[in-house]
């Protein structure tokens, strides 16, 4: 299986985000930042996605959805947590329905700080996730070879 070096497809889910990071993420796709020039496409289908972008912290209801979406994504995959809430719960950390950061339920590879995270830092996060993704793809290939020989 060959793996495209660039052009990851991203899946976005707002766990309990206040929308701030979500709009900034969408702003990345629009003319000023235009991540599509790097081949980054926002997809609605977890089965087509390489990078999972989660905004907001985890609550009772959203943790199931986050787990589900993560499980539906094919390997290799990377997770980017965007915004203060996704890192630790942020300002809502003490609220009764919030468990905390995304890493409470799924493994997170890149943490993008900010409230709300700026588009530049989100793009930087995706680029870093790309490196992780490539490494994972390489490892998988190597493992396959070992099994085959």
């Amino acid at each position, binding site marked *: 299986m060959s793996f495209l070096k660039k052009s990851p497809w991203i899946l976005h889910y707002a*766990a309990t985000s*206040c929308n701030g990071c979500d709009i900034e993420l969408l702003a990345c796709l629009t003319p000023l930042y235009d991540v599509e020039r790097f081949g980054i496409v926002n997809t609605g289908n977890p089965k087509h996605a390489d990078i999972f972008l989660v905004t907001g912290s985890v609550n009772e209801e959203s943790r199931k959805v986050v787990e589900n979406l993560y499980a539906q994504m094919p390997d290799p995959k990377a997770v980017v947590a965007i915004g203060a809430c996704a890192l630790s719960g942020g300002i809502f950390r003490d609220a009764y*329905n919030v468990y905390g950061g995304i890493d409470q339920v799924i493994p997170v590879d890149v943490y993008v700080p900010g409230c709300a995270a700026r588009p530049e830092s989100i793009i930087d996060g995706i680029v870093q996730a790309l490196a992780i993704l490539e490494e994972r793809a390489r490892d998988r290939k190597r493992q396959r070879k070992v099994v085959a020989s």
Partner: protein
Amino acid sequence: MANTTIIPFGPQHPVLPEPIHLDLELDDERVVQALPSIGYVHRGLELLAERHDFVEMAQVAERICGICSFIHGQGYCQGIERLMGLEVPPRAVYLRTAWAEMSRIQSHLLWLGLSADAFGFESLFQHSWRIREMLVDIIEETTGGRVIFGSCKVGGIRKDVDAETLQRVNRRMREIEAAFDEVANIFRADRTVKQRTVGVGVMSAEDAYALGAVGPVLRASGFASDTRQLGYAAYGELEWEPVVEQAGDCYARCEVRLREISQSIDLIRQCLANMPEGEIEVTFKGKRPKGETMVRLEQPRGEVCYYMSANGQKNLERFRVRTPTFANIAPLVHMLKGCDLADVPVIVLTIDPCVSCTER
């Protein structure tokens, strides 16, 4: 009659930036009943008033929602100021009003983009957001934040804006207006837009009123109700009329928002032209909020209510927010009844759902 099928819509759906879930009961292609279920974004921030004191709480209030962020902060501060009997200096009031209108424009442009995306007109989505970026630049220049402004605080505003910047804002408003008019023409005249919106999701004025619809949803059905008419902030001193449309369909709701953008640009101009000089905040050392109040403001999505109850302590006794989308859920359920499955995303988007507001 064919058997009814139940199709789950959301919480993760391509047209929705936010999670809301609808169970659509279908008879063939027609929706018999739509049952919304929420709770994906519920954080329970009303109770955070127990942890954060009344000054800090303004930050939490602003983060109820990232789109209507400024107006949430403004509403919260207005409530506390009323409880403490503070008189905010006029300059702060005018700047607040200008920022609130900027936040309305960016929210409406954002919505126009998303709805264009929902009916499959992607280039229009890109154009709306291109104009929105121009406005976000102004917001960033004057407040420092792009989506969470953080410029409103109890007793006034955090930072003054100098005259030169205000002039620049005025100039840029012209550019934005010109760019917006172009896009607005597409929304008004394009066949694709019309075909997806005219006659879809019609709601009569009586139904809208009885179901408690607020904001553009209510105004698109021919009911001139705009909470800004209460004259809070500087609205009482500015010249404007609520925007009303009669048809009550998705196209009318779109038109209301288009016209409101032009209106907001005008309101910002008026604010800039009449900007008073002077202080930007009042001090309230040692004072604590006491009593209870109900504050109502007009958000991009409609009327928002804050109920605050304080007993002279550092923390509020109760902080309650009723957001516009929450009031628009019942009208949405009504509109979805009997529509085609393919129209569901468009109708859902025309109430401009803001889920993180709704669930707090």
